């Protein structure tokens, strides 16, 4: 009997360093590392999409109106490993997000960090970090 012959086995590769780093899409084509944003708002919807989940938030403006923003995050399994659950970001949850704005000034951002009401800070790590030479491709 082959020791490998289990009916189903789920394995994860043990490290990320490799000759070819490939993310699902390009940070540089979409977001601007020179436009960091900090957004304080209320969650309206969380989309658990693999490979990039999106958080929709409503940000209150100085004049009392609100603006809808979309925040891109990392993959569902990395969010789960960092402590997110499906219940973490229910509609109405107040959060602060630090990230990088879309290059064309649209109300979308690539999320870097998320700060929960209790002060916990979670890394959202998506397609890029905005670090030098991080072209995300």
């Amino acid at each position, binding site marked *: 009997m082959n020791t490998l012959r289990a009916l189903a086995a789920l394995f994860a590769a*043990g490290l990320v360093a490799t000759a070819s780093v490939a993310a699902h899409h390009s940070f540089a084509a979409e977001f601007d590392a020179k436009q960091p944003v900090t957004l304080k708002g209320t969650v309206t919807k969380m989309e658990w999409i693999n490979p990039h989940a999106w958080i929709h938030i409503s940000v209150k403006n100085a004049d009392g109106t609100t603006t809808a923003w979309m925040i891109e995050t990392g993959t569902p*399994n990395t969010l789960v490993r960092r402590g997110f659950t499906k219940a973490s970001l229910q509609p109405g949850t107040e959060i602060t997000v630090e990230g990088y704005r879309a290059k064309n000034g649209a109300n979308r951002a690539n999320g870097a960090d998320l700060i929960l009401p209790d002060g916990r800070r979670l890394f959202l790590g998506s397609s890029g970090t905005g670090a030098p030479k991080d072209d995300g491709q």
Partner: protein
Amino acid sequence: MTDPGRYLAGRRTSLIVEPKDGRIPALTAEGKARVAKQPNRGASGAVISSWLDRGNQERCITYGLPNASLPTLYNNNIMIVQTPDTAVIVHEMIHEARIVPLDGRARLSSKIGQWIGSSRGRWEGDTLVVETTNFSGQQNYRGSTTGLQLTERYTRVGKDRLEMRLTVNDPTTWEKPWTVLLPMRPTEGELIEYACHEGNYSMFNLLEVARDEEKANAAKENKK
């Protein structure tokens, strides 16, 4: 998920164990010429006139091979499903399922090419050996061609350790074959379904950004 200190034996600093310097061998002259012609999609100013200018992974088509078998930034999860005459290797990325017959059947005709090739497998003792050929060339790895040959050897080396030894050979691309030794360990839970195309806001976003840049550049030209 990421623990090179604990999971890489011998303190090696490269996944590549052959050649001994841990580097992908030099490209052949033909390979160099081929790579030089490839678009750099990550470069600033890369052409994005339509989704057709974007890579196959961004378009949710495939990561290709050996890319799907090598670790990247995230979702480095595979599931191996086995029956007596077939093994299926499921990759979380693009939920690609590679069906590997183990019954000794003949290879596909060399006239047939597929995105992720065609695999045949066999057992050598406790090692599952998977050989993949018949690539269509629509997805290449660092300039590889339809002549790409991959040999994956999966060996369970301990209760919680699986090793994959992957040899990559394409004589018109690299001066010699090269081999990766990748340790893997079990992970909890099931693979999370990949919903790339359904949720591909990114494609919309990067095309919108590209169109807006064109408009802004045209407006600047008009002012001159």
